[in-house]
């Protein structure tokens, strides 16, 4: 039963250069841009062509044979992924022949598959499951022993990735990822025919900086990560669009949580930043978001540490600031922002300094090892430990003329009377005794923090601050791209987002409105910060920064 095809409209003779191609899918002519794959073109037409081995960023190998379609003028059934797009191509995806070939491929793929979905981490985001439900038969006619891969099951093949070849469908996506994106080529096909398996060359581990992406591109449960294995069923997870806190590239991530616990980061498609990828370093910071060491406001009184309620703690800081201003003037204050804080938060710190007339403000320079990420078109490099160094600077956190910066404090040239440190984990330097001593030299030290650091241990007032998962905001990455991250869940009281704490402090000092939301703060940023006037809420909506509707979790690509 084939769908009658509408003949393609022939291109008008000597027409000016056409920007699109007309492809007829199941009788429906659709305009598609040239240069894309037929599978992607079908998607634009709202037609799903099931596939396993095709991936938009990897070379086309045409070997899973799941995407078979009928092409007018070619008697044999054709793989859609290897069929070049051309004007007037007539594609049929609903014929009996196509249905039979899909069912046949599903049967072949499943005869040796263990069907161990109940204990497989991929279940729920498995292309084999999806396509079996969508295109397979209910029963298999295979009644032989299934293939086993003794010695190649449940084995760590690198620091993060666990391979189980009994589940593998030999699509080679992981091999192509290592060859073509990472450029490291750790994986290869071994043996041939029904014994073909994917493994590492000579036991050399799969240890490139993006190794877990091999598990991402794996359409089945053959490659999984040690870190996420057996922790949660994926359909239990809430997905929140967020930005990786690992460095200033600002890779887009899906923050996957349940019951106020962060379970994993997955890359979130953004062709201009991290494309479909995420580095291992950033990905496995997810667990660190669950660390909570400071969960109440405290104040040091002599040798004693007293628990306060947050408004009390804020008032204590505000009164200290007021008394310093009264006695020594605002130039005895010091405000230190952080690359780990959002634009909104850094902006509030600066506004407090402005309000008080304090010129001493700065951001910690927290350099890290260079991290690399491949966007669709280029390699990006990040070398700051915080995601928002550029944003913190943009928000105006640099010493004003005549003011002092962090260097002055750390070198001992200048000591503030009171220092407000935006984030306790502001740098590796926070744990260095020398730096801490210098900062501690200030008469009064207030810190907002989530984890214990050498700095938080000696501060006069410590405020309990939210993690990335517990707040919303924007980071500006190394490209100058403003990206929004959303809140996955609320912090338990009395923990608050940094911006809430700063806003409380600001209002206590007589500036701002405590009912403001991050959106209200962003409105101020648009008005006051150069270059941020165009960053509208619409552009930031959905967490996908300036690009709408691209929220795709690559886990189920």
């Amino acid at each position, binding site marked *: 039963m084939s769908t009658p095809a509408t003949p393609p409209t022939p291109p008008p003779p000597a027409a000016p250069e056409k920007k699109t191609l007309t492809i007829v899918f199941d009788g429906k002519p659709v305009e598609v841009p040239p240069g894309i794959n037929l599978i992607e073109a079908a998607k634009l037409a709202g037609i799903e062509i099931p596939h396993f081995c095709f991936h938009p960023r990897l070379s086309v190998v045409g070997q899973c044979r799941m995407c078979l379609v009928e092409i007018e003028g070619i008697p044999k059934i054709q793989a859609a992924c290897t069929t070049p797009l051309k004007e007037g191509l007539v594609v049929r995806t609903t014929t009996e022949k196509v249905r039979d070939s899909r069912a046949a491929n599903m049967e072949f793929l499943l005869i040796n598959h263990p069907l161990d979905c109940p204990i497989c981490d991929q279940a729920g985001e498995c292309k084999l499951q999806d396509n079996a439900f969508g295109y397979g038969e209910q029963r298999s006619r295979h009644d032989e022993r299934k293939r086993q891969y003794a010695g190649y099951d449940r084995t760590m093949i690198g620091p993060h990735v666990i391979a189980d070849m009994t589940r593998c469908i*030999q699509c080679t996506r992981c091999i192509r990822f290592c060859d073509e994106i990472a450029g490291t080529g750790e994986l290869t096909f071994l043996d041939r*025919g*029904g014994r073909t398996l994917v493994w590492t060359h000579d036991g050399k581990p799969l240890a490139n900086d993006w190794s877990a992406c091999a598990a991402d591109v794996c359409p089945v449960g053959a490659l999984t990560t040690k870190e996420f294995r057996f922790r949660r069923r994926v359909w239990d997870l809430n997905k929140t669009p967020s930005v990786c806190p690992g460095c200033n590239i600002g890779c887009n991530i899906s923050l996957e949580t349940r019951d106020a616990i962060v379970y994993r980061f997955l890359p979130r498609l953004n062709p201009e930043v991290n494309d479909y990828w995420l580095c291992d370093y950033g990905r496995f910071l997810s667990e660190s978001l669950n660390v909570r060491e400071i969960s109440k406001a405290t104040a040091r009184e002599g040798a004693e540490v007293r628990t306060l309620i947050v408004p009390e703690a804020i008032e204590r800081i505000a009164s200290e600031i007021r008394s310093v201003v009264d006695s020594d003037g605002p130039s005895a204050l010091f405000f230190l922002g952080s690359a780990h804080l959002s634009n909104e938060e850094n902006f509030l710190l600066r506004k407090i300094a402005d309000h008080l007339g304090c010129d001493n403000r700065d951001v910690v320079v927290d350099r890290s090892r260079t991290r690399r990420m491949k966007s669709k078109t280029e390699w990006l490099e990040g070398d700051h430990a915080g995601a928002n160094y550029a944003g913190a600077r943009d928000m105006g956190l640099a010493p004003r003329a005549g003011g002092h910066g962090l260097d002055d404090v750390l070198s001992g040239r200048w000591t503030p009377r009171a220092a407000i440190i935006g984030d306790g984990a502001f740098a590796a330097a926070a744990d260095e005794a020398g730096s801490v001593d210098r900062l501690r030299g200030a008469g009064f030290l207030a810190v907002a923090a989530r984890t214990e650091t050498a700095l938080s241990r000696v501060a006069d007032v410590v405020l309990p601050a939210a993690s990335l998962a517990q707040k919303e905001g924007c980071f500006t990455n190394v490209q100058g791209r403003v990206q929004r991250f959303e809140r996955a869940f609320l912090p338990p009281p009395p923990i608050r987002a940094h911006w809430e704490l700063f806003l409380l402090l600001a209002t206590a000092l007589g500036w701002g409105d405590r009912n403001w939301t991050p959106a209200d703060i962003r409105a101020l940023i648009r008005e006051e910060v150069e270059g941020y006037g165009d960053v509208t809420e619409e552009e930031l909506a959905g967490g996908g920064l300036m690009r709408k509707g691209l929220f795709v979790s690559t886990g189920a690509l």
Partner: protein
Amino acid sequence: MTFEPVLLARVGRDRSQDIDTYVADGGYGTLRKVLTGGGTPESVTEEVKKSGLRGRGGAGFPTGVKWGFVPKDTKGKPVYLLCNADESEPGTFKDRLLMEADPHQLLEGQILSAFALRCRTSYIYIRGEFFHGARVLVRAIEEAYREGYLGENILGSGFAHDITVHRGAGAYICGEETGLIESLEGKRGQPRIKPPFPAVFGVFGAPTIVNNVETLCCVTHIMGRGAEWFAKIGRNEKNTGPKLYCLSGAVNRPGVYEAPMGLQMKELLFGPDFGQGMKDGRKVKAVIPGGASAAMLTPEEIEDCPLDFDGLAAKKSMLGSAAIIVMNEDTCIVDAATNLAKFFSHESCGQCTPCREGTPWLYRVLSRIEAGEGRMEDIDLLEKISNQMANGMTICVFADAAIAPVLSSIGKFRDEYRYHVENKRCLVGSRTAAAVIA
């Protein structure tokens, strides 16, 4: 008129592989005539086209037409000629004989073909197991360099050519031309997606022609004696030239035989110059006419069965590599099919799902039937599995080859399969279920 062997003319003579005997027999005279007598690449191609030569590797594609697929403008890329000497089709052993016994005949044909293709460098991709053949070829190539038939400025003509022998690593699939190309490039031997075809994008991304050993040997003689002479040999104008037949199995005198294209199957099996009849007077049960991937024929079908491309296509089989495997009445057809299925299951490259999963499945079901544990529905199942493996389901035609023995044996000997299932043992032959299990 008796047929004088052409390709095998020198086989069996003393020191037939040496260059001095080859030259004494008139060898390399054709090369000299073409290169120094005003021959042009176009004239060689034209002559090969006129001869009607069809590729001897299996597909039977007209050689001259294939050469014509190389683009006129190669955009600065070199053209490569690859000699496919990866003779791996079960039952085939003709190219091995040609290479081991008369290597210069191949080299001369290869240099002539390279001249026609404006090819500077060509390769002989030889099956890894043909160690002796590779040694003979390397030595012959050294001789040819020494005598000026290879290298710079061959015979003062200005034409330069180099030939390199490359040994395969033991994969049947590397006989498929794009699998061969991948393997020659040092990669895993697995066929490529086509298009682009090798004539446009072949080895190292350059235009490439892949020709079989016997095909290239034929070129030597076409250029030596003329296309007309060649075209007159054979059953009709579509099936021309001398042909080597590899006869094996239950006949009195198996071996490589040369005859005009279109030799009658009965003549090959029973003729005094050929097989000389069935061994021990047994009856023919089935014949595979073109290597393991050709559908088997029944005794009725081999009556009036010309062994050429079209003659066998008419019987829904194929000439393939002209490997005629004769099975007698004592052969269990299920056993034979199981054996072939095992071969294909072992040799699938594993990239395409239907072939990677289907070939072992066929083998497992067949061996179960052979072991006396078959069910009646298994017979239909075998056909269904086969039918969902081929005809475009895969990148190359390996799967189409793998199902041919299964489908043809079931189609023609279904009763024997049924007997096997019902009685849990072979209808004939000694491989009872008990013997297999033990």
